[in-house]
């Protein structure tokens, strides 16, 4: 650690501080800033040349002056101290405790910007995780090591769904050690308290590491927070052999913080003012989930993001969808009908589902049932549109059956209680209840053996 302090700050703008005449400062170096009152702030070098150094100040540059600001370069990257003690603790975006308990003391410190995993070191995720939520397990299955975001919007119950997943997620017949890493960026106090109480009441608190940045905390801290959280998750997964579920909320606040800093730096904006590197930046975060050869643990990532103005083509959900292995999309329409969880299955998808379900994993009919429900529901929604134009009375008997199916699907399959933990067996049987409203020949996605075995009419 360098003891030398510089008093050569030459510009302060937003979260950025320029320091002149400091030689040979490393790119990405951690910085400590002392203001005239003697308070310290934290920062990181984001551009370095012989003439000047640009420092991103996490707490912002408000109330700094250029004359009496002291800057010290610590000659180390932004790091996090790691030990098994982190479980049950709450940190801020810089890895400092925010639960009024002492900081973690450990020899093990890791840079939060880890090098990318070698694709040759990964193993393909294929262990089905049962979340107890039918629309996820049955139609968009989550597997260990997957990254599956929840696309939500303001006012929708994404937090309740995320909490339900945390509470219920398990591998059928497996009780190995699991942990939760919870990363909250720019959340409100009520949301933060909701999660804390959820974890406490379900008794998992001792297995949870929380990283919290409130809506009124410095936005720049949101940029390091997910990386802190994932470095902790990697430690738990690959050093301590735990299965880690990482829940991140809300990625939209993260991206907005990135835009704020990018704009201050003068980066060329690409779409809606977001910098061109938003994709690469989000990928650095999301791609840290997965499974590694010869390691017991895993990182499963469930980021939550709110779609600004419910727009799925907004850059944040759009770029996220291109990186993650699917998405669970919540619908305002279903929510307004009082359906919880309001999962809109049509745009929802799990890319890793195909290898984690079926014979040997869940049940042999699972892939076909899922496909069949999707096809019928798509057709049913078309019929519903038609009915809203020409009136349900004008529909043929065949079409009316689709209409009934859509209602039954939403009220019985999609809707479930917040504490209702359905096994995959129950989910699939429920699916067959709905499919049995159709004659066997109308079910083209399931095969004849499955119809003979599960279709109610053929019993």
């Amino acid at each position, binding site marked *: 650690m360098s003891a030398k302090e510089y008093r050569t700050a030459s510009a302060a703008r937003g979260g950025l501080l320029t320091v002149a005449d400091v030689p040979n400062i490393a*790119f*990405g170096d951690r910085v400590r800033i002392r203001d005239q009152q003697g308070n310290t702030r934290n920062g990181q070098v984001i551009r370095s040349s012989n003439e000047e150094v640009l420092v991103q100040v996490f707490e912002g540059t408000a109330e700094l002056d250029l004359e009496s600001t002291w800057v010290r370069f610590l000659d180390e990257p932004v790091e996090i101290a790691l030990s098994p003690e982190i479980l049950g603790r709450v940190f801020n975006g810089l890895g400092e405790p925010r639960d009024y308990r002492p900081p973690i003391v450990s020899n093990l410190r890791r840079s939060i910007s880890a090098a990318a995993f070698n*694709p*040759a070191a990964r193993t393909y995720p294929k262990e089905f995780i049962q979340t107890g939520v039918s629309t996820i397990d049955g139609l968009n299955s989550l597997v260990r090591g997957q990254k599956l975001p929840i696309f939500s919007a303001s006012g929708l119950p994404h937090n309740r769904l995320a909490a339900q997943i945390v509470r219920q997620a398990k591998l059928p017949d497996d009780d190995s050690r699991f942990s939760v890493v919870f990363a909250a960026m720019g959340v409100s106090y009520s949301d933060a308290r909701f999660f804390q109480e959820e974890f406490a009441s379900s008794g998992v608190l001792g297995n949870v590491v929380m990283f919290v940045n409130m809506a009124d905390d410095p936005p720049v801290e949101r940029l390091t927070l997910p990386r802190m959280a994932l470095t902790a998750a990697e430690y738990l997964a690959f050093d301590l052999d735990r299965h880690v579920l990482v829940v991140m909320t809300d990625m939209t606040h993260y991206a907005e913080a990135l835009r704020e800093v990018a704009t201050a730096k003068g980066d060329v904006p690409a779409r809606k003012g977001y910098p061109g590197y938003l994709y690469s930046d989000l990928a650095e975060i999301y791609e840290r989930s997965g499974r590694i050869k010869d390691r017991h643990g895993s990182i499963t990532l469930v980021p939550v993001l709110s779609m600004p103005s419910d727009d799925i*083509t907004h*850059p944040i959900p759009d770029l996220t969808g291109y990186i993650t292995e699917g998405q669970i999309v919540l619908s305002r329409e279903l929510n307004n009908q009082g359906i919880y969880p309001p999962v809109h299955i049509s745009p929802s*998808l799990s890319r890793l589902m195909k290898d984690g379900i079926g014979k040997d994993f869940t049940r042999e009919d699972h892939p076909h049932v899922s496909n069949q429900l999707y096809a019928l529901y798509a057709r049913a929604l078309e019929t519903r549109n038609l009915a809203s134009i020409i009136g349900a009375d004008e529909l043929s008997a065949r079409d009316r059956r689709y209409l009934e199916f859509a209602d039954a699907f939403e009220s019985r399959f999609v809707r479930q209680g917040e504490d209702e933990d359905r096994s995959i067996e129950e989910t699939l049987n429920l699916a067959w209840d709905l499919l049995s409203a159709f004659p066997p020949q109308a079910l083209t996605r399931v095969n004849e053996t499955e119809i003979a075995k599960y279709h109610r009419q053929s019993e």
Partner: protein
Amino acid sequence: MKQTEKKGTIQDINGPIVTIKLPGVQNGEQVRIGSLGLYGEVISLEGEEALAQIYESTEMVRPGEPAEGLGHPLSVELGPGLIGGIFDGVQRPLEEMFLKAGDQIPRGLSPLPLDREKLWRFVPSETLEPNMPIIGGARLGVVQETETVEHRIIVPPDIEGELIELAPEGDYNLEETIGQVRDRRGQVRHLKLYHRWPVRKPRPYQSRDNGVEPLITGQRILDTFFPLLKGSKCAVPGPFGAGKTVVQHQVARWANADIVIYVGCGERGNELVDVLDSFPKLKDPYTDRPLMDRTLLIANTSNMPVVAREASIYVGITIAEYYRDQGYDVVMLADSTSRWAEALREVSGRLGQMPVEEGYPAYLASRLAAFYERAGRVETMDCGKGSITLIGAVSPPGGDFSEPVTSHTKEIIQTFWALSKELADARHYPAIDWVDSFSADVGTAAEWWHESIDRGWEKRRAQALGMLARDAELSRIVNLVGPEALSSAQRWVLEGATLIKEGVLQQSALDPVDTFSSPEKQFMLLDLILSVYDEGAALIELGVPVQELAEMPVLARLRRCKELYDSSQTDQLKAFRNEALKDFKEIHSEYAQRGEQTA
């Protein structure tokens, strides 16, 4: 290539863009910077200073650290040992790095792409003799690279002169000399089993040639409806979740190409693992050997440094050209070119270049065009024929095809496989939209289909597309006024179109039978469904109610034909055809009799 080493120092670090003071460095030259020796490439010069883009993270690099020029542009090693490998965006072997350095990719590590120890059995060409004149691209001999691929050792394109000596048959490693050539300047050049080639410079060939036969991918909607010729260029645009990657994987699996190069450019790590896991277990349907024996992967996952992403597709296409020069039909898949374009945008943004559309630099269109133009069917220097078929995935933001990358790409390519969110949402896979997609190669493909499969191909294809268009039109009416407004004949068109969609267009990549359809099977299915439609249409003329036809049990079976009979069971399919048409004949005679009675 000059071997003089140039030394300098780092001036400024701005993410992956680093300013170095390095007098005498060339534009495009490779550099190593910092105490870690990170690799990069000079992208512009100004006075004594050079801007370099660095392929690795520059964290904790500081001004004042050394920088050195390597004297050559970004190049790839071309020789036996490429096939079956997985390389990163600058051709570092990822398997070897995993063994050497563990789970994560460390910085500054640069193992050689090709194994230097391994011995290869070299068999020299019999037609060559000492003192013969020899040109670049001439075949010196062969090495069996994998069971599937015979690697033809060729003279590097930039060498020509007189062959002095050619090694006899035997086992050689990559560094041993297998031939000597006296070039035009009288210098003796030692040829090895491998050579290097700069990735941004297209490899030379004699002349361009027209495509003559379609690439068979075993995917019905691609081969039958939107064919792609060997040596052609194709784009696969689609929003996320529409199935771009599955389409690309299916082509990589089942295409009748000699070599498949899959470039994962800024995509998901787990998807590459899927390829790495499944390809060695899958059999090439044409040779019955493991697919990995003809496949090569270039992986720059989305979390790997962005500059190497920009390089990765050039690395891929250069290797593709090398196998083309050996006279092979190569398929290169780039997933996704949008990520490559974004890498360009990111670098140009850091350089402060003036953005034109959505932040992209003005040279986007010309770079895209120049890249796609490296595909094609050519007459090689050696007077053989080789081709590169280039299939680029495009990831338009928000699925909007009017964005710059999609629209510029569309101007260059011949075949366009447009993926649709609506189809994917209804789980209609592959979600290739038959309205937005096009192929400029149907005429040439038709010649091949007529020659090899059936004379009726072009007619049947047109009929099916016509019915699908009619279906879209009629569906609009139904959505306005309900199905009752349609005549029986029109409703039968809707039924027929549904049969085409479910029985032909939809194809499951996961079903072991349906995943691959031979051209014979493709045509038989299409012809069968259209024959059934034609028979039905004739019955409707006779007054048979459309409801009776729609509920015929044979139709349910017809939809399942694709998964009931594999490509070798054409006889069973024929038998089913006769059976199905017989059912229609029976109704026909029944109604014809009735008609006579009433008459």
